[in-house]
Each structure stands twice: as C-alpha cells, then as structure tokens.
C-alpha cells in the first residue's frame, strides 16, 4: 500500500493558548515557547532565533495591540518537526503592511526592525491585519531549518 505524501501538509501535534496582557505573561510565554522548542530537540541557535522572534512579536502585540493571545503549536511536515506561533490581537491594526515590513520603518519610537527582522529569523512568516480590527502574525520555525 502506498502512503500518499504531501510536502505542504502541516500537522499540528499539540496546541496551547496563552493570553498576554501584562509583562509577567511575556516571561511566561517565552518560557513555554522554550520548553516546546527543547521538547522537539531544536538546536540552540534555532531556539535563540525562535525566542527572539517571539520576543519581538509579543512586544508589538503589547505595544500596538494592547495585548492579545499566542497559540503555541508543535507542527510536523512529515519529515521534521517545528514550532508554530500565532499571535493575535484586537488592536488598531496596521494600515500599511508593506511599509511595516520594511527595515527602519516605525510608527513608534523604535528602530523599525521588529517585523522585517523577525521574518529573517524564522522559516515561515505571514501577517494579516485589518485597521480597527486587529493583527494576526504566524511564524514557523523548523527544528533543523
């Protein structure tokens, strides 16, 4: 019997949602992401990349989205495992995503590295935003990607 394989198929193996509304939640979230990364035997450099990316996104969510929630999933593409994080807020939204993804662009007082920098640190990155409704950012980091 042949087992059909699909390259783009991503299976979620475990799910966990964490609400982030204050600074203590940020520390808790980072610890949980680290736990999950260690559990799927992600290398140290990739762990650092994932945690740094999570740190950037959670800050954005706190600063511009007024808090939100993060869904932590262990995902599998058949051959390798990874961590998928989905950050959702119901904040002001991003009017111009293209500009927000550009290095050095910021509406706040920051360096404007958060979103483009995060994209460089992870394997998959997608962002959806609607002004007045909120923003969702999804990232995937494979254990050995």
């Amino acid at each position, binding site marked *: 019997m042949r087992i059909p394989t699909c390259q783009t198929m991503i299976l979620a193996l475990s799910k966990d949602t964490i609400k982030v509304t204050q*600074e203590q939640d*940020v*520390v808790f979230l*980072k610890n949980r992401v680290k736990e999950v990364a260690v559990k799927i035997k992600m290398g*140290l*450099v990739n*762990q*650092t*990349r994932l*945690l*740094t990316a999570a*740190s*950037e996104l959670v*800050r954005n969510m706190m600063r511009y989205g007024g808090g939100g929630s993060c869904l932590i999933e262990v995902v599998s593409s058949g051959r390798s495992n990874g961590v998928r994080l989905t950050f959702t807020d119901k904040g002001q939204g991003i009017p111009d995503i293209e500009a927000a993804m550009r*290095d050095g662009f910021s509406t706040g007082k*920051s*360096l404007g*590295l*958060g979103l*483009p*920098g*995060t994209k*460089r*640190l992870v394997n998959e990155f997608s962002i959806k935003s609607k002004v007045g409704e909120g923003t969702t950012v999804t990232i995937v980091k494979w254990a050995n990607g």
Partner: protein
Amino acid sequence: MDKIPILRMGPFLLVTIQVDLYDRLALTLEADLVQMVQKTSARGVLIDISAVSIVDSFMGRIIGNIASMSKILDAETVVVGMQPAVAITLIELGLPLKGVYTALNMEKGMNLLKSMIDTSGDDEDTDLSDDDISTE
C-alpha cells in the same frame, strides 16, 4: 521590583546581567547606570551578558543607548561574554551594535577598558601588556 546590581571597581562600573532582561528591567538599568556613571565619575562600564540567552531589537537598542549615553559622560562601555547564538541572531535581526565595544570575556574587556583610558588620560600606568588587549 527587580534591579540589576551595579558594582564599582576603581574607575569602572561592573554590571553582570544574570537574568533574562525584560523591558522594564532594561530601562531601569539604563537609567541607573547613567546616573552611577555621573555619581562615581566612572571612566568605564563593563557589561557582562554571558548569562543572557536572548537579545532582541529592544534590548539591543538599550545596550547601544547605554554606550552612547556613557560616552557623552566621558565613560567607555564594553560588552563582554556574548553567546554565539545571540551574535548570530543580532546580525540576522539587522542590529550590528555599531559603536559598542565588545570583548570575549571579562578579563579581555577589562584590559580593553584600561587601554582606552590610558591612551586618553595620563600615562602613569604603563605596565599593561599590550599583546593580549583585544580591540573591537
């Protein structure tokens, strides 16, 4: 509230960050450190980040700020002990930490600070061996 201790050692201030920084802690450190530089007339600041596993763009900016602020208060800043994974992440993130002196460890950082002060100040203390002084 948590605080990161700042130790005085001769003309230098030593900061060892033993916990993962969160935003408010980093901002407090920035303010405390700049005030300590002024209060103690410190000539150099040594920041050990060997126990820090994540430096994101905010923390990177704080480190850069501390260096620039100390500089205009006539003190040099050296960041020591950065983990290789942190260095990789910082560059990929797009934050090369320009203008911040770095050294591999405490000892080399201390030598670097001493050499910087020697060349700008009086040259009394010349028994430093120049060969193990690391530059940026």
